[in-house]
């Protein structure tokens, strides 16, 4: 749930509870106070009556004023002085409604006789006053709540704006775009800290990423130079006519080793770059003509092993990095030919965005589950063992499903492309 909703919900409930409790306390204390006032008035009457009796020796006239009545009743039961709330029907004024009166009942003795004197006063005014005060209070409370709610809604939205802006910036953050984190204008401490922390974090991420990118390049560079030296010296060495066959055979082996090192180096570098998502550029390509081109490129290799190629290609448009796709097709096809048998078979089927490459060839000398791992090679393979690992990394990056199955006598690799 949104922060504001939760905040205002809690706020409202707490406010309501507090105000409710307050109102109740307010009501009761007010009521008590007002009754006290009323009682004081009754006590004044009582004092006057007692005074009258004492000075004049007779009871005063019972009176019946607007909301006040005094009356006397002869009684022989003992009378305890006390305040009571009584309900009385008052036909004259209130249309036979029942009203509540506050009564002070006290004993008065006149000429040896005991009377129960009652002074009553209507609580109507009190009630009206109380009602008015509670209404006003309720009104204020309601007004307060509404005001708080509305102000909260408006203000909160504005106050949280920097936060939402920051959130949006984080969402749009792109490593390879090199855009630094925009600083926000805000004087709220928490948001300033948030911005600072996020800014620092993204700077560090960008720095680390650049270092990582450069490391892969630099490492490769460092390795290529000595390789270049060896290669060039070998090139010069073989010009010497004084060399004999046994020397040249050694040199050939060295050439091959340097070749392998170079390939290994390049493949590892490529793999690292693909893992680091350094190939973000995408072009619209169609796999069918690319595959045809590839087959033409590799025709020497294919003819050399006398592999029979059968290809059914349907158009397969994609939006991917052209360089990566070229490598993917290259590695897959070279793999299928190199690990084929002499005069073997190679079927290529591209349909419904699924590419199936099936080739004959010796049974795998390793488990099928590691075929796409780095450095998984057959016993007599002179490849780097990285060809399929690169294919897998490319597929992972784009979310293409890559799989291998053995359907005797064919090794089948299939990729499901996403348009």
């Amino acid at each position: 749930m949104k922060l504001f909703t939760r905040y205002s919900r809690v706020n409202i409930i707490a406010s309501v509870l507090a105000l409710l409790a307050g109102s109740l306390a307010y009501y009761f204390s007010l009521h008590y106070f007002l009754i006290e006032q009323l009682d004081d008035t009754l006590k004044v009457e009582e004092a006057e009556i007692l005074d009258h009796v004492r000075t004049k020796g007779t009871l005063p006239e019972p009176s019946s004023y607007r909301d006040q009545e005094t009356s006397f009743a002869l009684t022989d039961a003992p009378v305890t002085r006390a305040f009571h709330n009584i309900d009385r029907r008052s036909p004259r004024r209130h249309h036979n409604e029942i009203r509540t009166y506050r009564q002070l009942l006290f004993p008065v003795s006149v000429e040896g006789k005991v009377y129960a004197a009652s002074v009553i006063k209507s609580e109507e005014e009190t009630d009206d006053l109380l009602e008015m005060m509670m209404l006003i209070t309720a009104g204020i409370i309601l007004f307060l709540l509404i005001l708080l709610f509305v102000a909260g809604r408006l203000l909160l939205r504005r106050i949280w704006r920097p936060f939402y802006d920051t959130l949006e910036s984080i969402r749009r953050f792109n490593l390879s775009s090199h855009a630094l984190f925009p600083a926000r204008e805000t004087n709220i401490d928490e948001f300033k800290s948030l911005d600072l922390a996020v800014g620092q974090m993204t700077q560090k991420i960008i720095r680390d990423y650049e270092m990582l990118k450069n490391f892969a390049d630099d490492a490769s560079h460092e390795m290529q130079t000595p390789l270049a030296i060896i290669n060039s010296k070998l090139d010069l060495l073989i010009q010497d006519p004084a060399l004999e066959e046994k020397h040249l055979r050694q040199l050939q082996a060295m050439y091959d080793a340097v070749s392998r090192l170079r390939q290994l180096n390049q493949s590892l570098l490529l793999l690292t770059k693909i893992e680091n998502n350094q190939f973000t550029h995408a072009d619209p390509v169609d796999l069918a003509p690319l595959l045809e081109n590839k087959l033409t490129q590799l025709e020497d290799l294919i003819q050399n092993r006398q592999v029979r190629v059968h290809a059914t290609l349907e158009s397969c448009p994609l939006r991917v990095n052209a360089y990566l796709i070229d490598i993917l097709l290259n590695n897959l096809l070279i793999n299928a030919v190199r690990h084929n048998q002499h005069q073997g078979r190679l079927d290529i089927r591209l349909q419904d965005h699924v590419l199936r490459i099936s080739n004959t060839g010796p049974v795998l000398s390793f488990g099928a589950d590691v075929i796409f791992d780095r450095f998984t090679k057959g016993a007599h393979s002179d490849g780097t063992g990285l060809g399929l690992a690169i294919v897998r990394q490319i597929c992972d990056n784009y979310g293409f499903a890559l799989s291998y199955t053995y359907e005797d006598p064919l090794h089948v690799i299939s990729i499901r492309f996403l348009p």
Partner: protein
Amino acid sequence: MIMKILIVEDEKVLSDSIHSYLQQEHFICDVAGSFRSALEKIESYDYDCILLDLNLQDGNGLELLKELKRNNKADGVLILSARNSLEDKIAGLQLGADDYLAKPFHLSELGARVSAIIRRRHSAGSNIIRLDDTLIDTQAHTVSVKGRLLDLTRKEYQLLLYFAYNKGRVISKNAIAEHLWAEDAGGPAGYDFIYTHIKNLRRKLIDAGSPDLIHSVYGMGYKLSL
């Protein structure tokens, strides 16, 4: 005609190798081992071809290229780079470099590229490479022996051209494979198809009346010599 080449490379052993190799042709080579000395040399002289290593210790080769372009001397630049980075390649070619070669390379490959660049720049009349009776027309991409055109496949033509550029040098099978196929599409087993192509090429040349120019060197490579 004597061609002047500038080798900008800070790895001394490597620049020595290149120097040795190129000197055997009619090339005079200057060597610049740093950004600064390269800058001095290109400001003082004109070169027919400049081999430019991008990763110099004291500067970026691309800056040199920009300087050359500013002085309209950007023709004939062959970029050598250990980075093999696509961005560098594109940047270099956009800045006017003629070609790009990734390290490590075979000297024969370097030789062929340098020759090609120099031919392009001094194209007045030198489209023809003469190997005794055999003429290679680099513009029409044809080969003729004693005036008669040969029917060569594209790969066979490229092979012959490669040999011609490195006349008199032993070229290893590896170098040939990398030149024709750019990738190592096979190990020792893969070199069989080189053998097939060369066999066909030799036969076609001999059938047309040319002497057998291509000699194999103890199964390690080949040499074209007159």
